[in-house]
Protein backbone atom coordinates (compact mmCIF):
# COMPACT_ATOMS: atom_id res chain seq x y z
CA UNK A 1 0.00 0.00 0.00
CA UNK A 2 2.79 2.44 0.60
CA UNK A 3 5.28 1.33 -2.02
CA UNK A 4 7.43 4.03 -3.43
CA UNK A 5 7.99 4.12 -7.15
CA UNK A 6 10.61 6.54 -8.28
CA UNK A 7 12.32 7.11 -11.54
CA UNK A 8 15.40 9.08 -12.30
CA UNK A 9 14.55 12.68 -11.76
CA UNK A 10 15.61 14.55 -14.85
CA UNK A 11 15.19 18.27 -15.03
CA UNK A 12 14.10 19.50 -18.38
CA UNK A 13 14.87 23.07 -17.35
CA UNK A 14 18.58 23.32 -16.62
CA UNK A 15 21.61 21.25 -15.64
CA UNK A 16 21.77 20.16 -11.99
CA UNK A 17 20.84 23.36 -10.13
CA UNK A 18 21.36 24.10 -6.46
CA UNK A 19 18.88 22.57 -4.04
CA UNK A 20 16.59 25.28 -2.75
CA UNK A 21 14.51 23.18 -0.39
CA UNK A 22 15.66 20.00 1.28
CA UNK A 23 13.01 18.49 3.50
CA UNK A 24 14.13 15.36 5.27
CA UNK A 25 11.71 12.99 6.97
CA UNK A 26 9.33 15.58 8.34
CA UNK A 27 6.48 14.52 10.59
CA UNK A 28 3.67 17.00 11.06
CA UNK A 29 0.72 16.99 13.40
CA UNK A 30 -2.54 18.87 13.74
CA UNK A 31 -2.79 18.92 17.51
CA UNK A 32 -1.97 15.30 18.15
CA UNK A 33 -3.30 14.00 14.85
CA UNK A 34 -0.30 12.66 12.92
CA UNK A 35 -0.74 13.80 9.33
CA UNK A 36 2.68 13.61 7.68
CA UNK A 37 4.82 10.52 8.07
CA UNK A 38 8.54 10.87 7.22
CA UNK A 39 7.92 13.07 4.20
CA UNK A 40 11.06 13.97 2.29
CA UNK A 41 11.32 16.16 -0.76
CA UNK A 42 13.79 18.27 -2.66
CA UNK A 43 13.18 21.29 -4.82
CA UNK A 44 15.94 22.71 -6.97
CA UNK A 45 16.32 26.21 -8.25
CA UNK A 46 14.19 27.05 -11.27
CA UNK A 47 12.19 23.85 -10.87
CA UNK A 48 8.44 23.46 -10.90
CA UNK A 49 7.42 20.67 -8.56
CA UNK A 50 3.85 19.42 -8.22
CA UNK A 51 2.52 17.84 -5.03
CA UNK A 52 -0.36 15.61 -5.91
CA UNK A 53 -2.79 13.40 -4.07
CA UNK A 54 -6.39 13.19 -3.03
CA UNK A 55 -7.54 15.59 -0.38
CA UNK A 56 -6.66 14.48 3.06
CA UNK A 57 -3.39 13.12 1.65
CA UNK A 58 -1.31 15.83 3.30
CA UNK A 59 -0.41 18.13 0.41
CA UNK A 60 -1.55 21.35 2.03
CA UNK A 61 -0.07 20.22 5.30
CA UNK A 62 3.29 19.84 3.60
CA UNK A 63 3.18 23.37 2.23
CA UNK A 64 2.11 24.74 5.58
CA UNK A 65 4.98 22.95 7.25
CA UNK A 66 7.46 24.37 4.75
CA UNK A 67 6.10 27.88 5.27
CA UNK A 68 6.22 27.66 9.04
CA UNK A 69 2.51 27.70 9.70
CA UNK A 70 2.98 24.27 11.22
CA UNK A 71 6.11 23.15 12.97
CA UNK A 72 7.17 19.58 12.37
CA UNK A 73 7.89 17.26 15.23
CA UNK A 74 10.83 15.48 13.81
CA UNK A 75 12.71 15.96 10.57
CA UNK A 76 14.56 18.92 9.15
CA UNK A 77 13.93 21.48 6.45
CA UNK A 78 16.69 23.46 4.81
CA UNK A 79 15.94 26.45 2.65
CA UNK A 80 18.98 27.56 0.67
CA UNK A 81 21.14 26.07 3.37
CA UNK A 82 19.33 27.60 6.36
CA UNK A 83 17.48 25.32 8.76
CA UNK A 84 13.94 26.67 8.91
CA UNK A 85 11.89 23.98 10.65
CA UNK A 86 11.84 25.95 13.91
CA UNK A 87 11.52 29.43 12.49
CA UNK A 88 8.29 31.44 12.74
CA UNK A 89 6.31 32.02 9.56
CA UNK A 90 7.21 35.67 9.18
CA UNK A 91 10.93 34.91 9.31
CA UNK A 92 10.59 32.24 6.66
CA UNK A 93 8.67 34.66 4.46
CA UNK A 94 11.49 37.15 4.85
CA UNK A 95 13.99 34.56 3.75
CA UNK A 96 12.18 34.41 0.45
CA UNK A 97 9.83 31.45 0.84
CA UNK A 98 6.37 32.66 0.02
CA UNK A 99 3.18 30.68 0.54
CA UNK A 100 -0.02 31.52 -1.34
CA UNK A 101 -2.50 29.73 0.92
CA UNK A 102 -5.60 27.90 -0.24
CA UNK A 103 -8.74 30.01 -0.02
CA UNK A 104 -6.57 32.94 -1.11
CA UNK A 105 -7.14 34.92 2.09
CA UNK A 106 -7.31 38.28 0.48
CA UNK A 107 -7.95 41.09 2.98
CA UNK A 108 -11.58 41.93 2.34
CA UNK A 109 -11.50 45.28 4.12
CA UNK A 110 -8.44 46.52 2.25
CA UNK A 111 -8.24 47.67 -1.36
CA UNK A 112 -6.18 45.90 -3.99
CA UNK A 113 -3.51 48.58 -3.64
CA UNK A 114 -3.47 48.17 0.13
CA UNK A 115 -3.22 44.39 -0.14
CA UNK A 116 -0.17 44.81 -2.35
CA UNK A 117 1.23 47.56 -0.17
CA UNK A 118 1.06 45.34 2.89
CA UNK A 119 2.97 42.67 1.04
CA UNK A 120 5.83 45.04 0.32
CA UNK A 121 6.31 46.17 3.93
CA UNK A 122 8.95 43.65 4.83
CA UNK A 123 10.36 43.02 1.36
CA UNK A 124 13.83 44.49 0.79
CA UNK A 125 13.45 45.13 -2.94
CA UNK A 126 9.90 44.58 -4.06
CA UNK A 127 8.62 44.79 -7.59
CA UNK A 128 7.10 48.05 -8.62
CA UNK A 129 3.35 48.27 -8.95
CA UNK A 130 3.53 48.76 -12.69
CA UNK A 131 5.54 45.57 -13.00
CA UNK A 132 2.86 43.67 -11.11
CA UNK A 133 0.08 45.21 -13.16
CA UNK A 134 1.93 44.19 -16.30
CA UNK A 135 1.50 40.58 -15.20
CA UNK A 136 -2.07 41.07 -13.99
CA UNK A 137 -3.66 43.89 -16.00
CA UNK A 138 -7.06 43.02 -14.56
CA UNK A 139 -5.86 44.03 -11.11
CA UNK A 140 -4.93 47.46 -12.37
CA UNK A 141 -8.53 48.02 -13.38
CA UNK A 142 -9.67 47.02 -9.91
CA UNK A 143 -7.04 48.90 -7.93
CA UNK A 144 -9.39 50.81 -5.69
CA UNK A 145 -11.82 47.96 -5.06
CA UNK A 146 -12.03 46.29 -1.71
CA UNK A 147 -10.84 42.71 -1.51
CA UNK A 148 -14.28 41.43 -0.64
CA UNK A 149 -15.80 42.74 -3.83
CA UNK A 150 -13.38 40.94 -6.14
CA UNK A 151 -14.43 37.83 -8.03
CA UNK A 152 -12.84 34.48 -7.26
CA UNK A 153 -10.45 34.73 -10.15
CA UNK A 154 -9.47 38.29 -9.28
CA UNK A 155 -8.85 37.29 -5.69
CA UNK A 156 -6.58 34.49 -6.81
CA UNK A 157 -4.69 36.92 -9.04
CA UNK A 158 -4.30 39.27 -6.10
CA UNK A 159 -3.11 36.46 -3.85
CA UNK A 160 -0.45 35.48 -6.35
CA UNK A 161 0.45 39.11 -7.02
CA UNK A 162 0.97 39.64 -3.28
CA UNK A 163 3.48 36.85 -3.30
CA UNK A 164 5.21 37.93 -6.50
CA UNK A 165 5.64 41.53 -5.48
CA UNK A 166 8.00 40.34 -2.75
CA UNK A 167 10.33 38.79 -5.33
CA UNK A 168 10.33 35.46 -3.54
CA UNK A 169 13.00 32.87 -4.17
CA UNK A 170 10.34 30.18 -3.98
CA UNK A 171 6.57 30.34 -4.32
CA UNK A 172 4.28 27.71 -2.83
CA UNK A 173 0.87 27.64 -4.53
CA UNK A 174 -1.82 25.86 -2.52
CA UNK A 175 -4.74 24.83 -4.74
CA UNK A 176 -4.62 27.99 -6.87
CA UNK A 177 -7.21 26.79 -9.37
CA UNK A 178 -9.87 25.61 -6.96
CA UNK A 179 -13.34 26.84 -7.68
CA UNK A 180 -12.34 28.86 -10.72
CA UNK A 181 -13.90 28.84 -14.17
CA UNK A 182 -12.02 27.14 -17.01
CA UNK A 183 -11.00 30.32 -18.81
CA UNK A 184 -9.62 31.86 -15.63
CA UNK A 185 -7.63 28.72 -14.93
CA UNK A 186 -6.21 28.98 -18.45
CA UNK A 187 -5.31 32.59 -17.79
CA UNK A 188 -3.53 31.74 -14.55
CA UNK A 189 -1.72 28.84 -16.17
CA UNK A 190 -0.41 31.26 -18.78
CA UNK A 191 0.86 33.57 -16.04
CA UNK A 192 2.53 30.66 -14.31
CA UNK A 193 4.23 29.56 -17.52
CA UNK A 194 5.61 33.05 -18.00
CA UNK A 195 6.94 33.02 -14.46
CA UNK A 196 8.55 29.66 -15.02
CA UNK A 197 10.14 30.95 -18.21
CA UNK A 198 11.65 33.79 -16.18
CA UNK A 199 13.16 31.27 -13.81
CA UNK A 200 10.78 31.38 -10.86
CA UNK A 201 10.91 28.30 -8.64
CA UNK A 202 7.45 27.00 -7.88
CA UNK A 203 5.90 24.24 -5.81
CA UNK A 204 2.26 23.70 -6.68
CA UNK A 205 -0.38 21.68 -4.86
CA UNK A 206 -3.39 20.98 -7.00
CA UNK A 207 -6.24 18.54 -7.18
CA UNK A 208 -6.64 19.38 -10.83
CA UNK A 209 -4.01 16.89 -11.90
CA UNK A 210 -3.97 17.76 -15.59
CA UNK A 211 -3.40 21.44 -14.94
CA UNK A 212 -0.63 20.69 -12.45
CA UNK A 213 1.10 18.24 -14.77
CA UNK A 214 1.01 20.75 -17.60
CA UNK A 215 3.25 23.00 -15.55
CA UNK A 216 5.39 20.69 -13.51
CA UNK A 217 8.72 19.16 -14.24
CA UNK A 218 8.79 16.83 -11.26
CA UNK A 219 6.07 15.46 -9.10
CA UNK A 220 5.54 13.91 -5.69
CA UNK A 221 2.41 11.93 -4.92
CA UNK A 222 1.15 11.72 -1.37
CA UNK A 223 -1.26 9.23 0.13
CA UNK A 224 -2.43 9.24 3.75
CA UNK A 225 0.54 11.37 4.71
CA UNK A 226 3.20 9.23 3.00
CA UNK A 227 5.14 9.93 -0.18
CA UNK A 228 4.21 7.12 -2.55
CA UNK A 229 5.71 8.36 -5.80
CA UNK A 230 8.52 10.66 -6.84
CA UNK A 231 9.44 11.31 -10.44
CA UNK A 232 9.01 13.45 -13.51
CA UNK A 233 5.63 14.48 -14.80
CA UNK A 234 6.13 12.29 -17.86
CA UNK A 235 6.97 9.29 -15.69
CA UNK A 236 3.79 9.79 -13.70
CA UNK A 237 1.62 10.16 -16.76
CA UNK A 238 3.16 7.01 -18.12
CA UNK A 239 1.94 5.10 -15.04
CA UNK A 240 -1.85 5.01 -15.19
CA UNK A 241 -2.04 2.46 -12.35
CA UNK A 242 -0.35 4.88 -10.00
CA UNK A 243 -2.47 7.75 -11.18
CA UNK A 244 -5.67 5.81 -10.70
CA UNK A 245 -4.63 4.28 -7.41
CA UNK A 246 -3.60 7.46 -5.67
CA UNK A 247 -5.20 10.26 -7.62
CA UNK A 248 -8.40 8.80 -8.95
CA UNK A 249 -10.90 6.50 -7.39
Amino acid sequence: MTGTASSTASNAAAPAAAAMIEADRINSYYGDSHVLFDVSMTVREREVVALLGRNGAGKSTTLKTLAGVLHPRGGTIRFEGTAIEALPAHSIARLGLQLVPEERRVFGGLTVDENLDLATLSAPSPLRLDEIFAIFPRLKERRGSYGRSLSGGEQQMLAIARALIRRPRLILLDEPFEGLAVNIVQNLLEVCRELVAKGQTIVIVEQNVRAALSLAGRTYVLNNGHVVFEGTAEALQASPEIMNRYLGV
Partner: protein
Amino acid sequence: MPTLAQFLSQAFNGIALGSLLALIASGLSIILGTLGVLNFAHGAMFMLGAYTAYVVLGHWDSFAVALALGALVLFAVGFATERGLIRFYYARPKEDQILVTFGLGIMLVEAVRYVFGGLSQRVPLPAWGQGIVNFGYFIYPLYRVEAIGLVGVLLLAFYVLLYRTRIGLVVRAGIEDPLMVELLGTHVRRAFLIVFCLGAMAAGVAGVIYAPLAAVIPNMGEPFLVECFVVVVIGGLGSFPGAVVGGIVVGEILSLTTLFNPAYAQAAIYAVMTLVLIVRPRGLFGTMGRA
Protein backbone atom coordinates in the same frame (compact mmCIF):
# COMPACT_ATOMS: atom_id res chain seq x y z
CA MET B 1 -41.93 70.90 25.62
CA PRO B 2 -38.30 71.95 25.26
CA THR B 3 -37.50 75.10 23.36
CA LEU B 4 -35.44 75.20 20.21
CA ALA B 5 -32.58 76.70 22.16
CA GLN B 6 -32.66 73.90 24.67
CA PHE B 7 -32.89 71.32 21.92
CA LEU B 8 -29.94 72.67 19.99
CA SER B 9 -27.96 73.04 23.15
CA GLN B 10 -28.55 69.42 24.06
CA ALA B 11 -27.84 68.30 20.53
CA PHE B 12 -24.48 69.97 20.82
CA ASN B 13 -23.92 68.33 24.17
CA GLY B 14 -24.66 65.06 22.43
CA ILE B 15 -21.92 65.72 19.91
CA ALA B 16 -19.50 66.73 22.64
CA LEU B 17 -20.20 63.66 24.72
CA GLY B 18 -20.56 61.44 21.68
CA SER B 19 -17.27 62.41 20.12
CA LEU B 20 -15.56 61.83 23.43
CA LEU B 21 -17.14 58.40 23.65
CA ALA B 22 -16.11 57.78 20.06
CA LEU B 23 -12.49 58.47 20.93
CA ILE B 24 -12.49 56.25 24.01
CA ALA B 25 -14.40 53.51 22.23
CA SER B 26 -12.04 53.63 19.25
CA GLY B 27 -9.23 52.74 21.58
CA LEU B 28 -11.22 49.92 23.13
CA SER B 29 -12.29 48.67 19.72
CA ILE B 30 -8.87 48.38 18.12
CA ILE B 31 -7.57 46.56 21.18
CA LEU B 32 -10.52 44.24 21.00
CA GLY B 33 -10.33 43.76 17.26
CA THR B 34 -6.59 43.17 17.04
CA LEU B 35 -5.70 41.48 20.29
CA GLY B 36 -9.10 40.03 21.05
CA VAL B 37 -8.84 41.42 24.57
CA LEU B 38 -11.76 43.24 26.17
CA ASN B 39 -9.92 45.82 28.24
CA PHE B 40 -11.87 46.24 31.49
CA ALA B 41 -9.20 48.70 32.63
CA HIS B 42 -10.10 51.11 29.85
CA GLY B 43 -12.21 53.31 32.10
CA ALA B 44 -9.34 53.52 34.56
CA MET B 45 -7.03 54.63 31.76
CA PHE B 46 -9.48 57.39 30.90
CA MET B 47 -9.38 58.42 34.56
CA LEU B 48 -5.58 58.46 34.58
CA GLY B 49 -5.65 60.95 31.74
CA ALA B 50 -7.96 63.22 33.75
CA TYR B 51 -5.70 63.06 36.79
CA THR B 52 -2.67 63.82 34.65
CA ALA B 53 -4.48 66.95 33.54
CA TYR B 54 -5.21 67.76 37.16
CA VAL B 55 -1.56 67.45 38.13
CA VAL B 56 -0.20 69.33 35.13
CA LEU B 57 -2.71 72.16 35.14
CA GLY B 58 -2.14 72.65 38.84
CA HIS B 59 1.44 73.62 38.09
CA TRP B 60 1.60 74.96 34.54
CA ASP B 61 -1.03 76.80 32.63
CA SER B 62 -0.35 74.83 29.46
CA PHE B 63 -3.10 72.61 28.12
CA ALA B 64 -0.73 71.42 25.43
CA VAL B 65 1.63 70.06 28.08
CA ALA B 66 -1.32 68.36 29.78
CA LEU B 67 -2.29 66.66 26.51
CA ALA B 68 1.28 65.65 25.73
CA LEU B 69 1.93 64.34 29.19
CA GLY B 70 -1.41 62.55 29.29
CA ALA B 71 -0.52 60.77 26.07
CA LEU B 72 2.91 59.94 27.41
CA VAL B 73 1.71 58.60 30.75
CA LEU B 74 -0.86 56.39 29.10
CA PHE B 75 1.63 55.21 26.53
CA ALA B 76 3.84 54.10 29.39
CA VAL B 77 0.94 52.45 31.22
CA GLY B 78 -0.14 50.68 28.02
CA PHE B 79 3.39 49.52 27.33
CA ALA B 80 3.89 48.17 30.83
CA THR B 81 0.50 46.48 30.82
CA GLU B 82 0.95 44.72 27.51
CA ARG B 83 4.52 43.62 28.13
CA GLY B 84 4.06 42.83 31.78
CA LEU B 85 0.65 41.21 31.79
CA ILE B 86 -1.50 40.98 28.69
CA ARG B 87 0.97 39.17 26.47
CA PHE B 88 0.85 36.16 28.78
CA TYR B 89 -2.87 35.95 28.23
CA TYR B 90 -3.22 35.70 24.46
CA ALA B 91 -3.55 31.95 24.57
CA ARG B 92 -5.82 31.93 27.61
CA PRO B 93 -9.61 31.94 27.46
CA LYS B 94 -11.39 35.25 27.00
CA GLU B 95 -12.82 35.12 30.50
CA ASP B 96 -9.31 35.12 31.98
CA GLN B 97 -8.37 38.17 29.93
CA ILE B 98 -11.44 39.98 31.20
CA LEU B 99 -10.61 39.06 34.78
CA VAL B 100 -7.02 40.26 34.64
CA THR B 101 -7.86 43.61 33.04
CA PHE B 102 -10.65 43.99 35.59
CA GLY B 103 -8.16 43.44 38.39
CA LEU B 104 -5.75 45.86 36.78
CA GLY B 105 -8.48 48.46 36.61
CA ILE B 106 -9.10 48.13 40.33
CA MET B 107 -5.39 48.50 41.04
CA LEU B 108 -5.17 51.68 38.98
CA VAL B 109 -8.24 53.20 40.62
CA GLU B 110 -7.08 52.37 44.12
CA ALA B 111 -3.56 53.61 43.50
CA VAL B 112 -4.97 56.94 42.37
CA ARG B 113 -7.31 57.03 45.35
CA TYR B 114 -4.38 56.49 47.65
CA VAL B 115 -2.27 59.22 46.13
CA PHE B 116 -4.93 61.84 45.54
CA GLY B 117 -7.65 60.89 48.00
CA GLY B 118 -11.23 60.11 47.16
CA LEU B 119 -12.56 63.66 47.14
CA SER B 120 -13.39 65.17 43.82
CA GLN B 121 -10.85 67.51 42.33
CA ARG B 122 -11.52 70.42 40.07
CA VAL B 123 -9.50 71.03 36.97
CA PRO B 124 -9.70 74.67 35.88
CA LEU B 125 -10.80 75.61 32.40
CA PRO B 126 -7.92 76.86 30.32
CA ALA B 127 -7.88 80.61 29.71
CA TRP B 128 -8.78 80.21 26.05
CA GLY B 129 -11.69 78.01 27.04
CA GLN B 130 -13.55 80.34 29.29
CA GLY B 131 -16.64 82.12 28.24
CA ILE B 132 -19.49 81.38 25.90
CA VAL B 133 -20.26 81.30 22.24
CA ASN B 134 -23.34 82.92 20.86
CA PHE B 135 -24.87 80.82 18.11
CA GLY B 136 -27.83 83.09 17.63
CA TYR B 137 -30.46 80.57 18.59
CA PHE B 138 -28.66 79.61 21.74
CA ILE B 139 -25.53 80.23 23.72
CA TYR B 140 -23.09 77.50 24.51
CA PRO B 141 -19.97 77.13 26.66
CA LEU B 142 -16.84 77.90 24.65
CA TYR B 143 -14.72 75.10 26.04
CA ARG B 144 -17.19 72.47 24.94
CA VAL B 145 -17.05 73.75 21.39
CA GLU B 146 -13.27 73.68 21.54
CA ALA B 147 -13.39 70.21 23.07
CA ILE B 148 -15.50 68.99 20.16
CA GLY B 149 -12.95 70.48 17.82
CA LEU B 150 -10.05 68.96 19.69
CA VAL B 151 -11.58 65.50 19.83
CA GLY B 152 -12.47 65.83 16.18
CA VAL B 153 -8.85 66.52 15.35
CA LEU B 154 -7.75 63.55 17.41
CA LEU B 155 -10.28 61.26 15.74
CA LEU B 156 -9.00 62.50 12.42
CA ALA B 157 -5.46 61.72 13.53
CA PHE B 158 -6.65 58.27 14.56
CA TYR B 159 -8.20 57.84 11.15
CA VAL B 160 -5.04 58.93 9.40
CA LEU B 161 -3.05 56.56 11.55
CA LEU B 162 -5.30 53.62 10.74
CA TYR B 163 -5.91 54.29 7.09
CA ARG B 164 -2.85 56.12 5.84
CA THR B 165 0.11 54.65 7.61
CA ARG B 166 1.94 51.34 7.46
CA ILE B 167 1.21 50.50 11.07
CA GLY B 168 -2.46 51.23 10.46
CA LEU B 169 -2.40 48.91 7.47
CA VAL B 170 -0.91 46.15 9.60
CA VAL B 171 -3.50 46.75 12.31
CA ARG B 172 -6.46 46.68 9.94
CA ALA B 173 -5.17 43.59 8.17
CA GLY B 174 -4.30 42.02 11.52
CA ILE B 175 -7.86 42.46 12.76
CA GLU B 176 -9.05 40.48 9.76
CA ASP B 177 -6.46 37.76 9.34
CA PRO B 178 -3.35 37.82 11.52
CA LEU B 179 -1.93 34.61 10.06
CA MET B 180 -1.95 36.02 6.54
CA VAL B 181 -0.11 39.09 7.78
CA GLU B 182 2.55 36.78 9.22
CA LEU B 183 2.79 34.95 5.92
CA LEU B 184 3.56 38.26 4.28
CA GLY B 185 6.57 38.69 6.51
CA THR B 186 5.28 40.99 9.25
CA HIS B 187 5.61 40.02 12.91
CA VAL B 188 2.10 40.62 14.08
CA ARG B 189 2.76 40.24 17.79
CA ARG B 190 5.02 43.25 17.79
CA ALA B 191 2.16 45.26 16.37
CA PHE B 192 0.00 44.18 19.29
CA LEU B 193 2.12 46.19 21.66
CA ILE B 194 1.68 49.37 19.64
CA VAL B 195 -2.06 48.79 19.34
CA PHE B 196 -2.46 48.45 23.06
CA CYS B 197 -0.48 51.62 23.70
CA LEU B 198 -2.51 53.50 21.11
CA GLY B 199 -5.74 52.31 22.62
CA ALA B 200 -4.64 53.37 26.08
CA MET B 201 -3.50 56.75 24.78
CA ALA B 202 -6.85 57.35 23.13
CA ALA B 203 -8.60 56.82 26.44
CA GLY B 204 -6.07 58.93 28.34
CA VAL B 205 -6.17 61.91 26.00
CA ALA B 206 -9.97 61.80 26.13
CA GLY B 207 -9.61 61.98 29.89
CA VAL B 208 -7.41 65.07 29.68
CA ILE B 209 -9.96 66.86 27.52
CA TYR B 210 -12.86 65.81 29.71
CA ALA B 211 -11.17 66.85 32.98
CA PRO B 212 -12.25 70.52 33.08
CA LEU B 213 -15.85 69.54 32.35
CA ALA B 214 -16.67 67.49 35.42
CA ALA B 215 -15.53 66.32 38.82
CA VAL B 216 -12.33 64.35 38.76
CA ILE B 217 -12.66 61.37 41.09
CA PRO B 218 -10.98 57.97 41.14
CA ASN B 219 -13.88 55.98 39.75
CA MET B 220 -14.98 58.51 37.13
CA GLY B 221 -14.08 56.03 34.43
CA GLU B 222 -16.71 53.51 35.41
CA PRO B 223 -19.76 55.05 33.69
CA PHE B 224 -17.63 55.68 30.61
CA LEU B 225 -16.52 52.04 30.53
CA VAL B 226 -20.10 50.84 30.50
CA GLU B 227 -21.15 53.39 27.91
CA CYS B 228 -18.17 52.30 25.81
CA PHE B 229 -19.42 48.75 25.85
CA VAL B 230 -22.77 49.96 24.60
CA VAL B 231 -21.02 51.94 21.85
CA VAL B 232 -18.99 48.95 20.78
CA VAL B 233 -22.02 46.65 20.73
CA ILE B 234 -23.99 49.15 18.65
CA GLY B 235 -21.14 50.08 16.35
CA GLY B 236 -19.66 46.64 15.94
CA LEU B 237 -16.66 44.96 17.51
CA GLY B 238 -13.27 45.87 16.10
CA SER B 239 -14.58 48.61 13.86
CA PHE B 240 -13.25 52.17 13.95
CA PRO B 241 -16.11 53.67 11.92
CA GLY B 242 -18.45 51.70 14.17
CA ALA B 243 -16.91 53.26 17.26
CA VAL B 244 -17.27 56.76 15.84
CA VAL B 245 -20.82 56.39 14.64
CA GLY B 246 -21.80 54.40 17.70
CA GLY B 247 -20.26 57.02 19.94
CA ILE B 248 -22.19 59.88 18.38
CA VAL B 249 -25.39 57.85 18.46
CA VAL B 250 -25.02 57.03 22.14
CA GLY B 251 -24.00 60.58 22.97
CA GLU B 252 -27.04 62.00 21.23
CA ILE B 253 -29.42 59.49 22.77
CA LEU B 254 -28.14 60.34 26.23
CA SER B 255 -28.31 64.07 25.71
CA LEU B 256 -31.60 64.30 23.93
CA THR B 257 -33.51 61.97 26.23
CA THR B 258 -32.29 64.11 29.10
CA LEU B 259 -34.33 66.92 27.57
CA PHE B 260 -37.52 65.01 28.00
CA ASN B 261 -36.86 62.93 31.05
CA PRO B 262 -33.41 62.93 32.65
CA ALA B 263 -34.25 59.85 34.62
CA TYR B 264 -34.58 57.71 31.52
CA ALA B 265 -31.51 58.76 29.58
CA GLN B 266 -29.46 55.83 30.76
CA ALA B 267 -32.30 53.37 30.27
CA ALA B 268 -32.65 54.59 26.69
CA ILE B 269 -29.15 53.54 25.62
CA TYR B 270 -29.56 50.12 27.17
CA ALA B 271 -32.85 49.76 25.34
CA VAL B 272 -31.11 50.56 22.05
CA MET B 273 -28.32 48.14 22.87
CA THR B 274 -30.84 45.39 23.57
CA LEU B 275 -32.59 46.16 20.29
CA VAL B 276 -29.32 45.91 18.36
CA LEU B 277 -28.48 42.61 20.04
CA ILE B 278 -31.78 41.12 19.01
CA VAL B 279 -32.09 42.52 15.52
CA ARG B 280 -28.50 42.84 14.29
CA PRO B 281 -26.07 41.28 16.75
CA ARG B 282 -22.94 42.20 14.86
CA GLY B 283 -23.72 45.90 15.18
CA LEU B 284 -23.78 48.55 12.49
CA PHE B 285 -20.33 47.99 11.04
CA GLY B 286 -19.14 44.82 12.65
CA THR B 287 -17.80 42.21 10.28
CA MET B 288 -15.69 39.92 12.41
CA GLY B 289 -17.28 37.42 14.73
CA ARG B 290 -14.94 38.01 17.60
CA ALA B 291 -17.64 37.74 20.23
